């Protein structure tokens, strides 16, 4: 029987049955429609995220820190990738054999390793900054709960030679000292990230979008000359050992541009291995420690006296009887010299002569001169802990203070400030700002402090100081004309002058057309000699001679032989 002929069909069904069915179907459609509106309209963001998380990943893109190079492009600091091994202690359940294998690879003590993995922290570093190939062997052990991550480690090939100049970075490759800190903004890279699609095997198959492009840090080209830096470092180390001194520093400046060619301190440290690091080693003395400069300040007093028009280079000053009483205090010369010209006061470093010149000048002018030379205010090179030294306001000066300041007491300076101030004599009386980075163009003209004529006259006096009859014949260099000044000062300990000394020498060469300024400071020489002319001047001569040769500066007095054996005039303190 065919379906169409079925007798059942002729039987009428109640109308409500079909209506009910229709209603049921409509209701089902309404539920479907509502559900889809709910999914599409209200819940779509959550669902899309869930879907994307199945295949799309955000990858971190690391950026490298910029390199630090010297003026010739030689690398002084570079970051290279290393691995750090870390663990989730809860997952890292290792049997003793695995533990020994891991400890062996990482060169760790087994008990130490077990203690680390037994801690209840969520995350522990097992060992940081290991070579990538060691990390690969660790990964090959396939230990549970042990992971590695990529990090950067900074290396300093010149180690202790450039330690104070460059400083160092911390574990996160962020600058903490020196140039690393001063140029942090330029050196630091900005890590980026991008979204990609990964397949089942974890391989990236499509680049969706770049969220942030990684920015590598910029390279910094320093003014530093690695060769001169090394010469300064090795000569300073030798001088410290010979004089059994506590500390010391050398600064080398380019007199033409104000660039810092070398900065060394002793004691120093190895920035690649900072396990045993003491505070004394870290001190960047040339910038953070002030000292009373002593006689190295006399040339400025003389220059001001010449500038004021009250003295000429050949004006006679009575320094007999070798002492001068001002109020209740008396200042002394080491020797009685009698009548001296201004030039001889500098050459023989007479305190009485310098004090007499200073007392003829208004305190305000003297203060203005010292202030414009940069004493009393920090150099603002960006180094941590830079200090400005002490220069009291002139309104509070007593006459005795003005007299002692004439020969560098009652005022404190850093070695870098002192070296910079000598730019006025090495140049035509103008002062340049210092530069840590290599300058493409030399600065046009500095800020004038003294007139050209005064600068040249004082330069001639400074040349006399290193000749026989001066305080520093040991600063002579065969073939070159040298100008400079010694300084020997008592150290102040808890407010009183102690029987400890700071010997210094600041000078420049070739005197006919100065190219380099070298400043040497030796702290607490404990040998037989402690005068600047005996301790610091020979160091100056060695560093200067080798640096001039390294730079290929033509000798300006080819026939000149050094008369090193002529006795130094004892300088006054």
């Amino acid at each position, binding site marked *: 029987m065919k379906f169409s002929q079925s007798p059942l069909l002729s039987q009428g069904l109640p109308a409500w049955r079909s209506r009910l069915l229709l209603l049921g179907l409509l209701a089902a459609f309404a539920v479907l429609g509502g559900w889809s509106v709910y999914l599409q309209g209200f819940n779509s963001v959550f669902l899309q995220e869930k879907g994307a998380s199945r295949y799309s990943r955000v990858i971190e893109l690391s950026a*490298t820190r910029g*390199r630090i190079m010297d003026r010739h492009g*030689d*690398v*002084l600091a*570079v*970051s*290279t*990738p290393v691995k750090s091994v870390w663990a989730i202690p809860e997952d890292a359940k290792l049997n003793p054999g695995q533990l020994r294998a891991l400890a062996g690879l990482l060169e760790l003590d087994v008990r130490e390793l077990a203690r680390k993995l037994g801690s209840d922290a969520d995350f522990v570093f097992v060992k940081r900054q290991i070579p990538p190939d060691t990390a690969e062997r660790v990964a090959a052990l396939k230990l549970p709960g042990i992971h590695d991550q990529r990090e950067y480690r900074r*290396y300093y*090939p*010149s180690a202790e*030679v450039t330690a104070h100049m460059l400083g160092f970075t911390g574990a996160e490759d962020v600058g903490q000292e020196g140039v690393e800190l001063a140029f942090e903004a330029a050196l630091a890279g900005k890590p980026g990230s991008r979204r990609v699609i990964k397949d089942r095997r974890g*391989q*990236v*198959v*499509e*680049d969706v979008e770049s969220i942030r492009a990684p920015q590598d840090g910029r390279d910094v080209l320093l003014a530093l000359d*690695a*060769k001169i830096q*090394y*010469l300064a470092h*090795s000569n300073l180390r030798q001088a410290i050992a010979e004089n059994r001194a506590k500390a010391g520093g050398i600064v080398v400046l380019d007199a033409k541009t104000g660039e810092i060619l070398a900065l060394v301190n002793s004691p120093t440290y190895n920035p690649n291995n900072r396990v045993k690091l003491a505070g004394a080693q870290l001190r960047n003395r040339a910038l953070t420690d002030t000292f009373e400069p002593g006689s190295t300040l006399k040339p400025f007093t003389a220059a001001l006296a010449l500038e004021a028009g009250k003295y000429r280079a050949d004006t006679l000053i009575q320094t007999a009887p070798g002492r001068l009483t001002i109020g209740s205090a008396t200042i002394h010369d080491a020797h009685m010299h009698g009548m001296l010209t201004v030039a001889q006061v500098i050459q023989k470093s007479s305190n009485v002569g310098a004090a007499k010149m200073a007392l003829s000048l208004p305190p305000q002018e003297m203060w203005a001169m010292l202030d414009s030379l940069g004493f009393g205010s920090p150099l603002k090179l960006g180094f941590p802990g830079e200090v400005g030294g002490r220069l009291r306001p002139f309104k509070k000066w007593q006459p005795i203070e003005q007299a002692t300041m004439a020969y560098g007491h009652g005022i404190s300076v850093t070695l870098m400030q002192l070296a910079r101030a000598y730019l006025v004599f090495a140049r035509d009386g103008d002062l340049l700002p210092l530069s840590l980075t290599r300058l493409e163009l030399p600065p046009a003209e500095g800020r004038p402090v003294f007139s050209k004529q005064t600068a040249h006259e004082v330069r001639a006096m400074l040349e006399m100081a290193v000749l026989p009859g001066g305080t520093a014949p040991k600063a002579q260099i*065969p*073939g070159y004309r040298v100008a400079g000044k010694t300084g020997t000062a008592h150290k102040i300990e808890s407010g009183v002058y102690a029987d400890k000394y700071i010997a210094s020498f600041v000078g420049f060469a070739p005197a006919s057309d100065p190219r380099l300024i070298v400043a040497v400071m030796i702290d607490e020489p404990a040998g037989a000699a402690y005068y600047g002319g005996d301790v610091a001047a020979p160091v100056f001569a060695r560093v200067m001679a*080798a640096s001039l*040769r390294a730079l290929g500066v*033509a*000798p300006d007095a*080819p026939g000149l*032989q*050094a008369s090193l054996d002529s006795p130094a005039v004892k300088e006054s303190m």
Partner: protein
Amino acid sequence: MARINAILLALAVVCALATVSANHTARKLFTELEREQARSQALEVEWGQLQLEQSTWAAPGRVEKIARDKLRMKAPGPGQIISIDAVR
């Protein structure tokens, strides 16, 4: 009518296959790009390490030691330097 339909169908199939193949090529090229980028990064790292190595070998201290001890060189004395004027 049937012929046009057949042609359109064939066209659609060809387009679909072309899309598949283009996508595949894109992924292959992307993988290659990825590999090359990784290689360039590895080379960059190696360059940094080579620079480091060069700086270490060429450190003035080491050069001085070799010059003095091994090659028995020394700085010329005052009388041994002759300066000549530059030819203008």
